[in-house]
């Protein structure tokens, strides 16, 4: 094998990679937060809404879960401008990621809500809690605690999927790699370093999620 590995151009442009990694982190967190809001609304709608609402939410979930993310982002970035909705690449990326994670998280959170025993809610009513309090403390918090592992591994998967937004010229980590690669031709070296950075990001995300779990959900289970 006569190939000479050359990592110098990669590290000469390391600043670009860090800037890209930051965008990846921002996009991931933005989509996680917005997607969770979408998911809570849709999960409640699916558990308790009228039939047409449930039907619409089901259609949304099935369409998103059974088509590739790449097609979803093409649709949002290339097809929506045709009906007058033109988004910049990074905004389109955030919208696409939010729409995507929203569908997956809805199913996860709905499973959590359905795991709450009816008696819990009745106990809340009996104790004189207000509707908002029941929703927040009796339903949502235990539900989120139950599905937290499934939800956070879906979030990490989302962060990895976000590399696909580089195809619509968003400025994330993968896009920074494409940029450096096209200027230096050190393709393998660039992508090797970037893959390592994604691996570090996913490790950092799981460490962060473990901390959040400890801070928010570390109280004894009911018997």
């Amino acid at each position, binding site marked *: *094998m006569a190939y000479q590995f050359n990592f110098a151009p990669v590290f000469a442009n390391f600043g670009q990679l860090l800037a890209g990694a930051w965008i990846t982190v921002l996009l991931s967190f933005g989509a996680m937060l917005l997607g969770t809001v979408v998911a809570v609304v849709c999960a409640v709608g699916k558990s308790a809404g009228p039939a047409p609402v449930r039907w619409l939410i089901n259609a949304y979930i099935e369409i998103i879960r059974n088509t590739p993310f790449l097609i979803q982002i093409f649709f949002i970035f290339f097809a929506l401008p045709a009906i007058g909705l033109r988004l910049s690449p990074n905004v389109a990326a955030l919208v696409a990621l939010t729409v995507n994670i929203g569908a997956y998280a809805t199913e996860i959170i709905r499973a959590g809500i359905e795991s709450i025993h009816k008696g819990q809610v009745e106990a809340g009513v009996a104790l004189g809690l207000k509707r908002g309090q029941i929703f927040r403390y009796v339903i949502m918090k235990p539900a989120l605690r139950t599905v937290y592992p499934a939800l956070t591994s879906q979030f990490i998967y989302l962060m990895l999927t976000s590399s696909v937004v580089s195809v619509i010229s968003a400025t994330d980590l993968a896009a920074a790699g494409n940029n450096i690669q096209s200027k230096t031709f050190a393709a393998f070296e660039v992508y090797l370093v970037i893959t390592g950075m994604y691996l570090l990001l996913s490790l950092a995300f799981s460490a962060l999620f473990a901390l959040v779990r400890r801070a928010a959900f570390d109280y004894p289970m009911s018997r």
Partner: protein
Amino acid sequence: MIRAFGPNEFWFIVMAVQWTLALSAVAFAGGAVGGLLTALARVSGAKPLRYAALGFIRLFQGTPLLMQLFLVFFGLNIFGSGINPWLAASVALTLHASAFLGEIWRGCIEAVPKGQSEACWALGIGYFDRMKSVVLPQAARIAVAPTVGFLVQLIKGTSLASIIGFVELTRAGQIVNNATFDPFTVFGLVAALYFVLCWPLSILAGQLERRFAKASAR
């Protein structure tokens, strides 16, 4: 010159489904072999094997499929096999599927009660026969639903092969879109075709899961 979206464009996209299916089939077949080996290594008695399999799974589950495709694509080039999207996409997706199926099937093997293996031990049944005739057939029943579920993920994953120049459904859609500038129709059709491929599998996975949950609740 902008072409209109006509029957030719429609059939060009529909016919590209065969390449998506072919790539999915190759990756699934390769991933089944690799996944079985990975799962067996994960539950084996040899510590180095267990850790090697764990490292392999963590590596492929902790990095984006897109980067795996790029690395294999450019890596094969370094090893002198030239630019070959078919080969690169097959190899990358096979490795990807091996890691995911390995982790799924490890769980299924571990779900088989330990007494089964101990009974084999007591009866003097060796490793090969124990796996082939006792453990794996029982694990396979549990594995069907999540495996079908992963197949959906794999079919969707093949769309990324378009980025390294493999002409399948997504790439065909891009080619037609570049000629017709009709993204609504083109990507709508492409999305509908993926949906037709994946939705029945998703429903099947859900049914199998419920049936199994019912059977094991007794």
